[in-house]
């Protein structure tokens, strides 16, 4: 594990795509409405600001509003929250993409970071005119990010000739403006070996889906030299006691009934995402990955539904276990979102910070630092 990363305080982000809906992923993707409710989303963002959440993920997909446009609008109505804008390569020229990201940065005072995903179903990609297979999509994403990062380094004229992109004297007038950074923080999602390599090459943080801590620890050791962080996209269900949390988690899945399970079985057949498919497999094999990490909702809510379930103490312990395995950032979906954000900030986060301080001082005493 990279010791510098391991001693930093954990960072917490939340998913925004569910704002206004209790159980977004329980619906089949076609049934989710794509009309953004600006007031509801604004309220969600402000709540996240109050709860000390660093950034909100605005996801990408045909069934959702466009994340960049949404971020530009919400930036005008908020003051601290960052927007983690999901992006796929292959839907836009990298020059235009950088121009759009820099525009949101200028409008928001740098409150934008990007979450790169290569795409998860060939079917949806084709709706965007993209007919590449999984591995070629990664190759293209590599070229895409190479070009974007040249712009963000402010190279004066960018020339590029690859198998997917070609640029001659690429230039943009508007830089990425932020008090501290000259480029947006780059997150990259995916569990495949290609995703991991790409994250090491281009990203500040590799988003992956949860696994057993020992599996994650092995991954984080592999990442250590690159300085790339590892983050987990997962769900959270905290209640005053462990019994209540488990009861609510099971009740939620029972209430969802059969239709979402059918929808996810269908999605599983169509997807070529290693991350999503491996999580379905993991959930088939284990109900609990650790005493606090439950997979029981994956069949109904999909791969991001591996959840930390328990009392505030349990969940804080669970989070620290993952930190010890090398995880440094979390992106949560809450069951339910708004309440869980409040609970997290009030009951869990102080415990996490306490445990982090205890870790740090015991390390100092041990003289290992």
């Amino acid at each position, binding site marked *: 594990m990279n010791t510098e990363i391991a001693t930093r305080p954990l960072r917490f982000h939340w998913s925004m795509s569910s704002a206004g809906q209790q159980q977004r992923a329980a619906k089949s993707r*076609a049934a*989710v*409405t*794509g*009309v*953004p409710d*600006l007031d509801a989303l604004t309220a969600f963002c402000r709540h996240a600001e109050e709860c000390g959440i660093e950034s909100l993920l605005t996801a990408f997909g*045909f*069934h*959702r*509003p*466009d994340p*960049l*446009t*949404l971020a*530009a*609008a919400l*930036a*005008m*109505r908020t003051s601290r929250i960052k927007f983690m804008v999901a992006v796929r390569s*292959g*839907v*836009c*020229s*990298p*020059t*235009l993409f950088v*121009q*759009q990201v*820099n*525009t*949101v940065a*200028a*409008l928001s005072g740098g409150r934008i970071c990007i979450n790169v995903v290569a795409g998860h179903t060939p*079917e949806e990609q*084709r*709706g*965007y*005119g*993209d*007919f590449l297979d999984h591995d070629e999509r990664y190759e293209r994403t590599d070229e895409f990010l190479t070009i974007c990062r040249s712009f963000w380094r402010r190279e004066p004229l960018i020339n590029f000739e690859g198998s997917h*992109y*070609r*640029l*001659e*004297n*690429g*230039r*943009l*007038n*508007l*830089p990425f*403006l932020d008090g501290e950074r000259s480029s947006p923080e780059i997150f990259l999602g995916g569990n495949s070996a290609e995703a991991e390599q790409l994250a090491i090459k281009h990203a500040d943080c590799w988003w992956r889906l949860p696994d057993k801590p020992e599996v994650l620890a092995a991954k984080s050791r592999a990442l250590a030299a690159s300085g790339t962080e590892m983050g987990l996209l997962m769900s959270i269900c905290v209640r005053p006691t462990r019994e209540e949390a488990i009861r609510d988690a099971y009740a939620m899945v029972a209430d969802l009934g059969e239709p979402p399970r059918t929808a996810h079985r269908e999605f599983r057949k169509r997807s070529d995402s290693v991350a999503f498919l491996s999580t379905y497999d993991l959930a088939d094999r284990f109900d609990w990955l650790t005493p606090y990490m439950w997979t029981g909702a994956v069949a109904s809510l999909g791969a991001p539904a591996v959840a930390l379930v328990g009392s505030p103490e349990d969940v804080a312990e669970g989070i620290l276990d993952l930190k010890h395995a090398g995880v440094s950032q979390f992106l949560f979906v809450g069951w339910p979102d708004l309440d869980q954000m409040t609970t997290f900030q009030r009951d869990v986060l102080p415990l996490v910070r306490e445990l982090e301080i205890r870790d740090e001082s015991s390390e100092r005493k041990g003289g290992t630092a």
Partner: protein
Amino acid sequence: MTDALRFHWRLPQGGERAGASRALLASRPESALPDVDYQASFCRTAEDLGIESLLTDFGWSKPDSILLSAAIGLQCTRAKFIIAYRSGLICPTTFVQQLNTLSALIDGRFSLNVVAGHSPDEQRSYGDFLPHDERYARTEEFLAICNAFWHGDSPVNYEGRFYRLENGKVATPFISSDGAKGPELYIAGNSDQAMQMAITQGSCWMMMADTPAKIFAKSGPVLESRKTIGLRMSVFARPTREEAITAARAFAAERPAGFDSKSAESRFVTGGDTVGMRKTFELAESEWLTPWLWTGLVRTHGAPTLAIIGSYDDVAEALLEYKAAGVRQFIFSGWPKLDEMVRFGSEVIPRVREAEAAAA
């Protein structure tokens, strides 16, 4: 008064309050910074004056026009935007998704001004290496797909030379309380290809200005297909013709220290492959094309600065001459930007409306 002339104005970029040429602006990074408060107040002034929409430019030296319109659109209630965009930079599905998202945020208050691209140099910077005619062929496909999303049945399937889509879907619909299912589509460009595209895909052919007679001579096919004609140009309206000419000449004489707009603009035109920009540059051989149509800024400030000059009455009459020649919409620039728009809105528009009412 459904046949009334429609007036739009170019929205100044953030760093651009006084007059400045295109070439000068592109040389200043700060010109690309949005200034949302100023720009939103410009839009609210426009609303009050009866200016229908504000043109948000597209270009490498500027912020993105869709996202800027989202930010400013939330700060005003009636003003619309004319969003300039190019084909070939973004997949049509994503483009429609961005615009439909914007429509849901600002109640559909925008139209599109689609340009096939005006300089190969700039297009290549965006990764687009097609020559002029091919760009038009691609833009035609691009807009056909966009129109299928807006006005056709979902999902969208398409197989063309430049685009291929299989079961394209965008869940966010175009939303506008006036019931429109997609944005109004201006096709900008003076070439025959642009005209053809206005007929097949657009609702208005937006040209660089010329004399009413010459505009009329070119407009036949567009008018026959029941599409409208729009002009992108400039205006200097003052209480008297003399004052207007003095103001225009004074503006033309402003020379930022150490910057040669003239050679920069002529490099832009000779490096470009647009028919409209080149033709207008040639027109500027003579200073006056009619007693009120002045070319004095064209060679330093670009084709959109071909200007109507005169007293408020002169300018109103000129607009009605254009109307008689089939023109229905204008996108104007003026200097000083805000003052000129205020003068135009409070002095010229009422005169036009009066004449239109009298004619009805």
